[in-house]
């Protein structure tokens, strides 16, 4: 495979990251502007990712329709709505009454409905899984119930102690536990970043 395909992306990633990282710690003439330019490139490329995602969806679902893959009818619907949104947005503008009507009639309710399912899912998941099978799950059930209930205004009506208990759980054990997890995850990201910088991890390029 050509060198620019195997090594090129690694060199670009390395240089871009090096400029941004060094500019964070070192003050040098021109370095700040160079770093700003690199970040701008990153922002522009991120913007293109939306466009690439759009092309990918179109390609994938048009392929589903032409090859009559399972549930291809939904792909027809997806492509139709996608084209409608794009056409109306281009013809009338993204702030137009027509575009906002489609947004308010189709997109808004569908998104809200999917998210609203969470309320019911939370209940059935909690009812099924919140059982004290052992010490750890017992602690989970106990603190979960206290926090979940205590945060609601109705708990303060029953007794102010629920709110205080919830507040303590959120401020002390929750922060202690989540801080440990966040530190671990943060270190994992630093480790991953170093592997990408040095070209040791090339899975992001699609290679093994």
């Amino acid at each position, binding site marked *: 495979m050509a060198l620019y395909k195997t090594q090129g992306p690694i060199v670009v990633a390395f240089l871009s990251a090096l400029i941004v990282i060094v500019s964070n710690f070192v003050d040098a003439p021109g370095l700040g502007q160079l770093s700003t330019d690199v*970040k*701008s490139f990153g*922002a522009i490329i991120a913007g293109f990712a939306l466009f690439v995602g759009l092309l990918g969806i179109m390609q994938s679902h048009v392929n589903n329709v032409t090859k009559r893959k399972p549930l291809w009818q939904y792909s027809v619907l997806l492509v139709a709505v996608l084209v409608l949104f794009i056409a109306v947005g281009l013809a009338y503008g993204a*702030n137009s009454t027509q575009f906002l009507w489609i947004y308010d009639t189709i997109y808004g309710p569908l998104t809200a409905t999917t998210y609203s399912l969470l309320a*019911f899912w939370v209940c059935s998941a909690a009812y099924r899984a919140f059982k*004290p099978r052992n010490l750890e799950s017992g602690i989970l*059930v106990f603190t979960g119930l206290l926090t979940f209930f205590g945060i609601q*205004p109705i708990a303060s009506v029953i007794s102010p102690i629920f709110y205080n208990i919830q507040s303590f759980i959120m*401020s002390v054990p929750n922060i202690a536990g989540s*801080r440990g997890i966040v530190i671990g995850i943060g270190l994992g990201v630093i480790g991953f970043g170093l592997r990408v910088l040095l070209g040791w991890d090339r899975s992001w390029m699609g290679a093994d």
Partner: protein
Amino acid sequence: MAEKKSLIDKIQDLDPKIIYAILLVSLLIPYVRPLGLPIPISPETRAYWDYITHMPPGSVVAVQLASDPSTIPQTRSSHQITILRLFEQDCKVFFFTLRDDAPPLHEEMMKWVEAHLSAGKTITYGVNYVNIGYVADAEATIASLVADVKGLVEQDAYGNSLSSLPMMADINTGADFDLVVWNDGSRGIYMYALRQWREKLGTPLVIIAATINKPGIMNYIQSGQVAGGAFGVDGGAQIETISGYLGDAKKATEPGSLSALTLTILLLVSNTIYISKRFGKQPEIKGGEVK
């Protein structure tokens, strides 16, 4: 012949459809008969509001919106009351969003804000506020914005050149802002603002977010990196209570409260049954397994 389940067993293995039906009833009751529940004010929401209300006139505030139609019911009240208050205090507001589906929500909330400004108060686009609309959802975008605002975007959301807008005359980098109000929705991207703005430049940061992100954000409120937060519908209701502005959040907390009470009762019942079954009878050994 299959053993008939006792009532206790049926309750313990309750069909999810029955749970959903009970939940639906508890969600609907407050709409029929409002409960008039008091709204306790949490320290983080109090801190959030205190920060907003102490912004001096002329302050420049960046307001980011990352809620979408699904999470905006949780954050709408906090967001629009915050904007309203900032305008009442003669602050200048710089709007942007990291979600491609948020701009219509912004326009909707601006209509509410304009309708609720106090008598005689007017706001002029380009002088009191600027909206650059959607920018790519990436940390690099925030890094770029903080480094050079006009370098990232040359035009606002309506096609005007940013440099032509009077408000933008003295705004060039993230350091020219006095506060960042970050509406995170449920996205979990508040770290962009924390790392690229707050930690790099020291610009104070307050967050509006869905309740699901509260435990994570509390870390940063406790450490002082985030000055305050308004979370979910409860946060919105608290903002409405302490600000005195009317909104939908207070009404919306009641279904949540009652359904939480319902779920708590259901969990207590099922766990009581589970514990009594688990510890109440002697284990039997059947087929090599302890039951």
